[in-house]
Structure formats: C-alpha cells, structure tokens
C-alpha cells in the first residue's frame, strides 16, 4: 500500500496548493537563469553567427599598446582595402569587411499592452529613484547596422521571412524585433530602404536588433559627411586654396582634389571578419596580422568575452548572485514545507510505529511525498517559465539542462528535508497513542 499516494490524495488541496507555491518559486529561479542565458546569448549570437574565427580591428585607440575593443564595444575604423591583404595570408579562407554601428529611427513599433504594463510598472517602481523625464516612454527604435559584402561572411544567418539581400543598394534584412515587416519601406538617414527579409534572435549585447545592409549602403549611411558640414568644409578648403595662390599656385588643383576626396571618402570599415581554413593555426595567423602595427586581432571567444565582460559584467554577476539567493530561498521554503508537513503527521507516525511499521515505511512515505512535491513543483514551475518566455522584453532562454539542474537540486533538498523531518518525527514515542493510567 502506497501511503504517500493516499496521503496526497486525501490532502489534495493542501498538497497541491503548496506544490503550486513551490512551482512559482522555481519559476522565478528558472526565469533568472533564463535571463542570464539570454544576456549571454545576446552577447555572443552576432559573433558566433558571423562564423569568423578572428576579428581584425583598429589598434591604436583609447588603450595604446592594447588595441581597441572593436567593433562592438569600442570604436574601430580601418580603411576597407586592408581586407585584400588579409585575404591572401596562408590559412585564411575568407576576409570580409564589416561595418557595425548603433543607430536609431524616430519611431517605435506600437507598444503592446504587456509592454505598456511593464512601462507603467517600471515607472511606479522607479518614481522615487529617478528625476522627472528620465523614464519617458521611448519613441525611437535603436538598432545596430551591420554592413557586409554580399556573398561573404557577416550577413544574416537565418532568414525567417522574405529573402536575403540581392540588390547592390537599398535593401535591408532586419531582425523581427525591430517590428519591421517584409516589403516595408524604411527611411534611414538620407536614404530609403526596402525590407526584403526578416531574421530572428540577431541582436547585440544591448539587445538592440540588427539591421543588415550591403557594405556600400552601410558605408554611405554611416560615413557619408553631413551635406551642411561638407559645404562648410569645402568653404574652408577654398579659403586654403586662395591662401595657397599667393605662394604655390601650381599645387592648388592637387590640394583641392585631395581635400574633396578626403571629405567624400566613405571607404571605411569597422572590422575585418576572418574565416580560417580547417586546421589553420589561428594564433600564428593572428601574429602575422599583428605585424601591421596599426591592426589588432581578437579571436571570436575574445570578442564575445569583451561584450560579456563589458557593460554586461556587473549585471551578470548581480543576476547570478540573485539566482543563488533565490535557489537558497527556494530550497529553504521547500525544506520548511516538507518539514512541517512531516511534523503534522507525528500522530499517524506514532500509530504506524505502534502497529509495527518499519522505519523504512515511514521514510519511504515522507520521501516519496517530498520528491513528488520537488519534482512536480520543478516541472510545473519550469513549464510556466517556458510559457512566459516570449512575453519578456529581452530574450529569456531556459534550457533542459537548467531544468535538470533544478530537478537535481530540488530532489536533494526534498530528500534532505524529509530525512531531517522523519528523524525528528520518528522520535515520537508510540506510547503517546495510548492513554495514561
């Protein structure tokens, strides 16, 4: 006779309401784990999906001798032509010029009810912490422009709707998080683009969605000089020419042409993504590239690490610590529930002992109930978490590994709590069932 099953059946409401409480606690723990994994994935997807093993960036930046942490964490700017030289290094399969920069458009996709609720909730929770105006509803859509040479690495990896970029100009593939749809015309800067495809989960470490465009479009969009600035700079150049007329009139055409070419030049890139041949020695190739004194090289793992350990570092540490605390609290709560459930049964345990039940019968009953609560609580909590994932504003990704970890942790907690509780409960003297006399 399975006593645990019969106890659960009889105390159904009490048991299942407690299990639901445990489930909600587990849901929060798994969600925090999912948020951590989401931040990690957001920081790594763009790098991993590019498929490059090495990233070449501008060397001299804010940290002389160390190199800039480009192209996603710090500014890096290189002449586009460098990629030709890198392409011919032995062991390099492909070198692709990449442009990457944060931009915005002045309208957001219409907020959903849930987003409005989250916004109001954020306002209520932060109203004593921020100055008026800081928490204004955002009305610009931030995104990352990634320009790549079509046919080379660095483009959108998975198209979920529409197609990839085929025309030389004015076509973009956007992450579905932008809210754009296939066929939509979007004005970015001075140019209008047509959305020809959508991709998924392509965001930067800030969770801003990516918009892919051809390298030329990206260069024009990002590096073209503002026409007002151009006119101003041309006036300065003409003034220099006039000054030059008195001393070196023959140099005027050359200097003027150079100056105008400099002002109109957009042939820059932010990085060169380098894909290696199978078996190529990445360390040796990186050393080779570093011989150019103005270049720095990072592996894909270093690129991901820069993003993780950059602005996301402390929030990751904080979330991980919070998760640890929650796991501890969940363990304590489950332990206390099981402990009190068991101590509620001391009279029944005394009867069982008096009837000659072995200790194992009592242990088995309590352990089965505790494990049932732990396992069902974890599975229901994890299920609720998986159902709620799409509604979070940032990516939340809980894996079967996370759920398995929680199952093991909760089973251990449940087993430990039930053993402690039964040891205490087994001290009950079966004589307590008898009257005095």
């Amino acid at each position, binding site marked *: *006779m399975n*006593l645990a099953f*019969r*106890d659960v*059946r*009889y*105390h159904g409401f009490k048991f299942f309401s407690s299990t639901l409480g445990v489930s909600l606690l587990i849901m929060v723990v798994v969600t925090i784990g999912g948020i951590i994994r989401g931040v990690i994935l957001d920081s790594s997807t763009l790098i991993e999906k590019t498929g490059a093993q090495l990233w070449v960036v501008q060397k001299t930046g804010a940290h002389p001798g160390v190199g800039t942490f480009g192209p996603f964490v710090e500014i890096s700017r290189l002449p586009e032509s460098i990629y030709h030289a890198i392409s011919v290094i032995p062991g390099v399969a492909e070198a692709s010029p990449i442009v990457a920069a944060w931009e915005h458009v002045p309208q957001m996709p219409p907020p959903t009810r849930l987003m409005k609720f989250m916004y109001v909730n954020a306002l209520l929770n932060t109203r004593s912490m921020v100055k008026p105006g800081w928490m204004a509803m955002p009305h610009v859509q931030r995104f990352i422009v990634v320009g790549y040479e079509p046919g080379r690495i660095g483009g959108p990896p998975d198209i979920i709707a529409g197609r990839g970029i085929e025309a030389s100009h004015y076509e973009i593939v956007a992450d579905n998080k932008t809210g754009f749809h296939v066929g939509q015309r979007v004005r970015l800067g001075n140019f209008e683009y047509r959305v020809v495809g959508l991709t998924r989960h392509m965001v930067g470490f800030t969770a801003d969605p990516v918009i892919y465009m051809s390298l030329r479009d990206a260069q024009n969009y990002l590096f073209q000089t503002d026409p007002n600035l151009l006119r101003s700079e041309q006036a300065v150049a003409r003034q220099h020419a006039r000054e030059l007329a008195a001393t070196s009139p023959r140099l005027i055409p050359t200097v003027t042409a150079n100056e105008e070419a400099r002002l109109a030049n957009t042939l820059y890139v932010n990085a060169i993504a380098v894909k290696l041949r199978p078996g190529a020695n990445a360390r040796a190739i990186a050393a080779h590239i570093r011989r150019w004194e103005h270049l720095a090289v990072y592996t894909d793992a270093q690129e991901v690490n820069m993003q993780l350990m950059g602005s996301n570092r402390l929030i990751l540490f904080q979330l991980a610590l919070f998760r640890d605390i929650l796991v501890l609290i969940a363990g304590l709560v489950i332990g206390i529930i099981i402990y009190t459930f068991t101590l509620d049964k001391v*009279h*029944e345990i005394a*009867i*069982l*002992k*008096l*009837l*000659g*039940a*072995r200790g194992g*019968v009592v242990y088995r009953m309590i352990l089965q109930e505790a494990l049932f609560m732990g396992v069902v609580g974890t599975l229901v909590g994890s299920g609720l978490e998986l159902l709620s994932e799409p509604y979070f504003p940032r990516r939340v990704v809980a894996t079967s590994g996370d759920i398995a970890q929680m199952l093991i942790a909760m089973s251990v907690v449940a087993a430990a709590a039930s053993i402690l509780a039964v040891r205490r409960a087994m001290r009950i*003297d*079966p*004589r307590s*069932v*008898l*009257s*005095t*006399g």
Partner: protein
Amino acid sequence: MSANQSTAAAPIDTPEGFAILAEGLGKVYGQGASRVEALKGIDLTVRPGDFLIIMGPSGSGKTTLLTLLGLVNEPTTGRLVLGGREIYGGVPPDLARMRREEMGFIFQAPNLIPFLTARENVLLPLSLAGVRGEEAQNRVSQLLEYFEIAERAAQYPNQLSGGEQQRVAIARALANNPRIILADEPTASLDTDRALAVVRLLRRISRENAAAVLLVTHDHRLLTEVDEVIEMEDGRIASRKKVDPEA
C-alpha cells in the same frame, strides 16, 4: 460484578503454553527525586483464548503494564515471555515485527489513519506484514462484513460515526489474526449498548481465534462479559479474580 476467586500467578515451568508470561516485571521512570516506580514485580500469566480486564485507579500502572506487554516500553526489571519467546533475555527478537504480526492494538480513541479509507485502515497491518493481493483483500472484506461496516468501507474516518470508527479500529487490530490483543479503554467514549457490543465482539474473536485479550478499563459495566478481572493498585496486581457468568 461477579468475582469469586483470587488466583495469584503461580511459577511457570513451561512458558510455551502461555500467550503471556511475566515474572517480576518492574518499571521505574526518572531518577533521584523524580524517581517513580510505576510497576512493582508484576507476575502474570495469560493463556491463548483468555479474556481479561485490568482495572484500577488512575496511576495504578494499567497503561504502563499494557505498554510493556505491547513491546513499546522496556521493563526495568523482570522477565517477559510472549508466545514462548523470551523478549529481554538472550538474542533480542524483532519487536516491531512481533507487534506487526502477533499483536493487535485497540485504543481509547480509534486512532485510525485519517488519510486512509476504512478499508485501507483495515488493510494496513496486512500490508505492513507483507500480506498482499487477493489473500489480503479477502481477509479485509471478511472483517468488514463481520463488523457490519462493509458499506462504509470507502469512507474516510472523519465520515464515519464514533461507533463505526471503533469497529474499524477493532477490525484493524484483528486483521493479522493476532495472538495477543491489547485494548486500552476501547469503550470509554461509547454508550452502554455500544460498549457491551464491542466487548462481546472481542470476546467472540478471542474464543474463535484463541487470542489472548487484555482490556484496560474503568468501566464496571463490562465485568459480566469477561473471564477474569485483574485489579491493580499502586503498581502491583492487587487481585486476580475469575468472573462467574451465572452470578
């Protein structure tokens, strides 16, 4: 009350013939100033099929004696033989197993397991003893029929009347065909008719199964229904008298 004979226990040479044999059984609680001698040199023999009532004022040691005989309490002194087995001398037997397989307990309160139905409560001792399947189910059905609670078999204890609960408790005590039945004030919460019915039932079982029944009670209404009465006083057996059913 009809009691006409005092029968102090005589020395026993062949303990195998007795369901219970106690010699010089004593129990002391506490030490020093708080020392209480609850039982003092109890000599007692009970044969299979005997039906005895233990009476006496509160604190006379009735329940303590019952706990010693029920193997849930260890005597400080003396010898105890149950079913021919020496309990506290030589190789100690598995006391839980003896309770499980050879004893039945009936309490003042029914003490049913609240999360088991009436049927499951009766099945419990069989299940604990490893008796399963059809044999166990048939035994339970017989007992439920016998005690006229078969129709209430699927009910939980809190859905049964006090009398029904007590009958389920008795059925549970008898499930394993125990050789010794120990009952502690089983009729205290019952009216006269029900109390007498319970005792008659126990007596019938005792005769049919050759089970020794020891019933602790304050209830003098029950004296007409038993074989012998043991009077306890201050931790000792003051008297043991046969009851004359004709008187």
